[in-house]
């Protein structure tokens, strides 16, 4: 079972749900490598780049964006049936994204506040990760995802090996990069110690605290970090906003995030993700390290 | 199943009868009979009332359970020196599995009811018999726990 590829060229699709499009554009961010990939697989569905469409089947379907409308909830189940391997890419697809902050509110009230004629708008109360609706075989974190991780995932799939995605905290990459820790040297509210690696520790290297766009590391001892922030004299309100970012809805952050307009302590919890992340083909070991399984948190 | 003549010595065949005081050994021997089963004999069926507790001298007895859809599965084999049908000594005195000889077996059988009465009357005999039964059952329990872990199942995967 080792090599998931068949004799035929892989049929690859890219599907978009609620998002900014940045993660699927990271494919274009592969630059010349994009053409090398296109030489080896058939990209059969990628609405933002290709006019020809395909409703499947797909060997690999990259899914960007969160589920935030009734149509999307129906569509993802259909796509799952068409996809042998479904990989969610980016913070929206893996956690619900920044738009998931609506989950702390009464969604209808938000819609009313945003649109003069809310009746025209068909949206769900909540924005939820793909993994709360269908089984996900692997995931790439980040807002946006890292081009290197995307390239590695695609390469691993083509070669038939495990994708090697560093499973650690942002601190690992920060130290490898030689960046001075912002917490110790400035008392900055950096989420690096509880945030999953993969970005290359960009923010600290650019002089600002990590804001957790790759989502929680696992384990993520958020309580201990919050205690440290509190010792530095930060208010609960500020600490709550730190976690109310682009992955606020991720399991380990959810209970700690307090968006400014929150009316709920916590958003309604969807289906337990534990059963929802397979990390591989049925009967095949995880495509990514099992450490990527958010359900462990 | 061919009955052999009663042999007082039969009780000595195994750890089960070993180092008993002579009086108790006599008493135990009186309850024992040596029997030979050809291969394939069903000694008892799961749920049957158990008449006799046995000690295997030679051969192998399979303890089997019927799993609907999978047929009979062997969960343990009783090897020489070990006992079978210990449930004959514990209420409700019914067999907890189906016993089949998978090869010709020589065994010493004890009339379960008689043995129960004997140990009830003779505290000394009881103080020898029950610990031996308990040891045999405990050994099986330990083995069953290990089997429960299915340690070979997840073995030799690799994290890479």
């Amino acid at each position, binding site marked *: 079972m080792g090599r998931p590829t068949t004799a035929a060229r892989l049929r690859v699709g890219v599907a978009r749900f609620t998002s900014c499009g940045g993660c699927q*554009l990271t494919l274009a961010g592969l630059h010349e490598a994009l053409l090398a990939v296109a030489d080896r697989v058939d990209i059969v569905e990628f609405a933002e780049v290709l006019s020809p469409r395909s409703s499947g089947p797909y060997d690999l379907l990259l899914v960007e964006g969160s589920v935030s409308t009734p149509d999307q909830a129906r569509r993802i189940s259909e796509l799952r049936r068409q996809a042998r391997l479904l990989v969610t890419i980016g913070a929206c697809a893996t956690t619900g994204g920044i738009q998931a902050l609506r989950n702390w509110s009464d969604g209808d009230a938000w819609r009313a506040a945003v649109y003069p004629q809310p009746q025209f708008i068909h949206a769900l109360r909540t*924005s939820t990760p793909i993994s709360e609706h269908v089984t996900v075989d692997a995931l790439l974190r980040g807002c946006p995802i890292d081009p290197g991780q995307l390239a590695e995932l695609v390469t691993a799939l083509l070669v038939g090996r495990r994708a090697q995605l560093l499973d650690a905290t942002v601190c690992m990459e920060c130290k490898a990069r030689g960046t001075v820790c912002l917490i110790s040297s400035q008392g900055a509210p950096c989420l690096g110690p509880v945030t999953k690696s993969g970005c290359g520790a960009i923010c600290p290297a*650019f002089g600002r605290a990590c804001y957790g766009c790759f989502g929680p590391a696992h384990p993520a001892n958020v309580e201990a970090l919050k205690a440290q922030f509190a010792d530095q004299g930060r208010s609960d309100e500020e600490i709550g906003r730190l976690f109310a970012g682009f992955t606020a809805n991720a399991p380990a952050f959810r209970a700690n995030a307090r968006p400014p307009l929150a009316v709920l302590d916590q958003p309604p919890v969807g289906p337990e993700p534990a059963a929802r992340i397979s990390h591989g083909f049925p009967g095949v070991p995880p495509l990514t390290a099992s450490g990527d399984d958010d359900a462990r948190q | 199943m061919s009955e052999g003549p009663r042999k007082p010595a039969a009780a000595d065949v195994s750890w089960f009868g070993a180092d008993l005081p002579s009086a108790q050994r006599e008493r135990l021997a009186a309850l024992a009979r040596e029997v030979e089963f050809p291969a394939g004999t069903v000694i008892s069926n799961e749920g049957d009332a158990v008449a006799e507790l046995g000690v295997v001298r030679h051969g192998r007895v399979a303890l089997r359970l019927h799993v609907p859809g999978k047929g009979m599965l062997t969960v343990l084999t009783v090897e020489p020196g070990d006992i079978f049908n210990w449930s004959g000594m514990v209420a409700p005195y019914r067999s907890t599995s189906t016993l089949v000889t998978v090869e010709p077996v020589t065994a010493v059988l004890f009339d379960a009811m008689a043995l129960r009465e004997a140990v009830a009357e003779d505290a000394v005999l009881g103080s020898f018999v029950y610990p031996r039964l308990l040891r045999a059952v405990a050994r099986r329990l330990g083995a069953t726990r290990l089997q429960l872990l299915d340690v070979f199942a997840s073995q030799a995967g690799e994290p890479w």
Partner: protein
Amino acid sequence: MHGSDLPGGGAAGPGSGDGRSGSAAPELRFEVEELTRVEGEGSLRLRMRGDEVVEARLNIFEAPRYFEQLVRGRTPDEVIDIVARICGICPVAYQMSAVHAFEDLFGVQVDPEVRRLRRLFYCGEWLESHALHVYLLHAPDFLGYDSAVAMARDLRPLVERGLRLRRAGDAIIAAIGGRPIHPVSVRVGGFSRAPRRTELAALRPLLEQALDDAVATVRLAATFETPAMERVARLVSMRHPDEYPYNEGHIVSSDGLDIELPAWRDAFSEYQVEGSNALYARASDGSAYLLGPSARIALAATQLHPLARRELEATGLADEIAANIFRSVVARGVELVHAAAEALELVEAYRPPDAALVPWTARPGTAAWATEAPRGLLFHRYELDERGRIAEAQIVPPTSQNQAAIEADLRVFAPSVLRLSHVEAQRRLEQLVRSYDPCISCATHFLDLTVEEA
């Protein structure tokens, strides 16, 4: 027909309604369920009877994300991170409009080198965004392919050139902001970190190559055959006395409008249309208007980098660019040249600012600003409370402003494709829409808190 006609309101157009009125002529329908090779989810509907356009509608069904709500209660720096997520193609533009709005309200004077860095930053985004659109999305239309992937089989060097240009833009943004998409270093008062001189110097080879590639792009685009087309909407862009418009200047139009950036609302407003998750924008007089490369070239060509102006003149298409939206591909080419050329100069002249970040204090009030996103004028307006947190926000992206012009142009263009096969006609209509480089994720989910007042 503009002026009297409500943009996007084909349905509301005089005598058209649902099209059941009178005439016996058979109705012709063009439906594009989901537009491809545009950023986001939108559909196109055109209904005609004879030569009469009954309905022309660009629907945007991209799911709403409620950004105006998301930024409420946030600090200015948080807003800069959040609004970037409105668009994966032009996050820099969103960060720039926001940061300038706040600095204008707080009276922040950034280091001159920071101002130049921000221009360089914008050059990167134009390179990255225009290269994506010209080569991966738009060129296939002119060269007869249904995708850049198909095009790459025959014209690989062409596609590689586009990807090289995009790489150059990505590299600039990453050098200044950490990563090409959703950069992290933009802060009120400057940047959280200024690049080392060597880091920017390392970009030179890429940019020199990009300049050559950009020039080649203009010359290629100039050869593209385009349908004839009469402009219906007025042109609107920013203009600055000394530089091609990115971050600063005035809002000007082809019919003489000239206002300060924060005053956008004096001349324009937004409204909502059923079936669309976007808000439309129109001039106060109700007319449609066009933003973006074509408008900028038409209104600010004099400030183009000499190399870009030279290339523009060589094409001899300056007037057509202003009149025919299909020529926007040439306009993008010219702006690629400008961005590459200016970027090279900025990189060579760069020296790290004394203060990458200057201190500031928030104050309550209205922060409003506009900058020139690749697709055109991007207006932000925020009400800040006494704690310096966002109380209200209004974000008006180029595409929702262009939407009316798109529909107006559809009405003008539609009759000319009637003689073509249905498939070909539909392809042409899509091509027209694509010429605006609509960014639907930007256009959708915006709110105008003034609607109630209006």
